């Protein structure tokens, strides 16, 4: 059976990882769009992204578009793999409960 990922299994981090995993072509997602996807506040989103960045699950890039600062986030290969494993674990858990527990 797959193993759970304690770092990912937090409601907002799950949404962050899910939102990033659905980005077209794995392209980086702007902070403002990620905020809309997760419906989180700036501070909350920032602190959870920092945790995922420290774990090597996401890559955060900051630059400027003209004079406007821009922050973009993308899953790293390790992050994508960790997310897939965690989703597989969740699915196995639900399916095994459905087979044995109902």
């Amino acid at each position, binding site marked *: 059976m797959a193993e*759970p990922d*304690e770092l990912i*299994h937090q*409601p907002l981090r*799950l*949404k*962050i*990882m*899910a*939102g*990033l*995993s*659905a*980005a*077209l*072509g794995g*392209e980086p*997602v*702007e902070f*403002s*769009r990620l*905020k*809309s*996807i*997760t419906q989180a506040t700036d501070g909350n989103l920032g602190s959870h992204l920092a945790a995922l960045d420290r774990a090597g699950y996401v890559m955060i890039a900051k630059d400027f578009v003209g004079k406007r600062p821009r922050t973009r986030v993308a899953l790293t290969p390790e992050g994508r793999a960790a997310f897939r494993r965690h*989703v597989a*674990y*969740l*699915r196995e*858990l*639900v399916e*095994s*409960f459905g087979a044995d*527990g109902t």
Partner: protein
Amino acid sequence: MDISPDDAAQALSDIASARGRSRALAGYSVAGPILVIWGIIWLAAYTAMGILPAAQWGLVWVPGDAIGIVATILLSRRANRQAGIKGTTWRLLGLMALVVVFSAGLFAMVRTSDINVYFAFPGLLTGTIYTALGLWRMTRYLWVGIAVIAASLIGFFAFAAILPYWMAVVVGGGLIVSGLLFRRP
């Protein structure tokens, strides 16, 4: 770490919702420029319809529609490739051909002499397609569709004397504004 099956099911549901929102927002960022381009085409072509004699309307609409179709295909192709969706070009062309066949068939059957029907009909049809798209997948299209239908009908019934200019500014301009708003997260 102890996760209950109920927690797991809720987590999977949250994941699906977040992925859906992510895809929808990505779709809007692709659709936004397409709406802006069609809005500019409508603004120019309807204005020309107000100025030029009917025999010359094709001189504006044919190249305008060609530009719009090519731009739509090119702008959506990259996004669809990244999403692993194939065959979009042919589906888009097929949809546009369907619109032409439907419109031609309808006017062949109805045979109206009211020129304003020809002015307002594209707005009514486009708004209906957008509304259907909004009901099915991308909610922002719902509001654009309803607004385009409403503007077309209001123009037809309340501003008949200036309908081509109404369609240019209100509907064409509305598409431009909608396209710009689509890009917002």
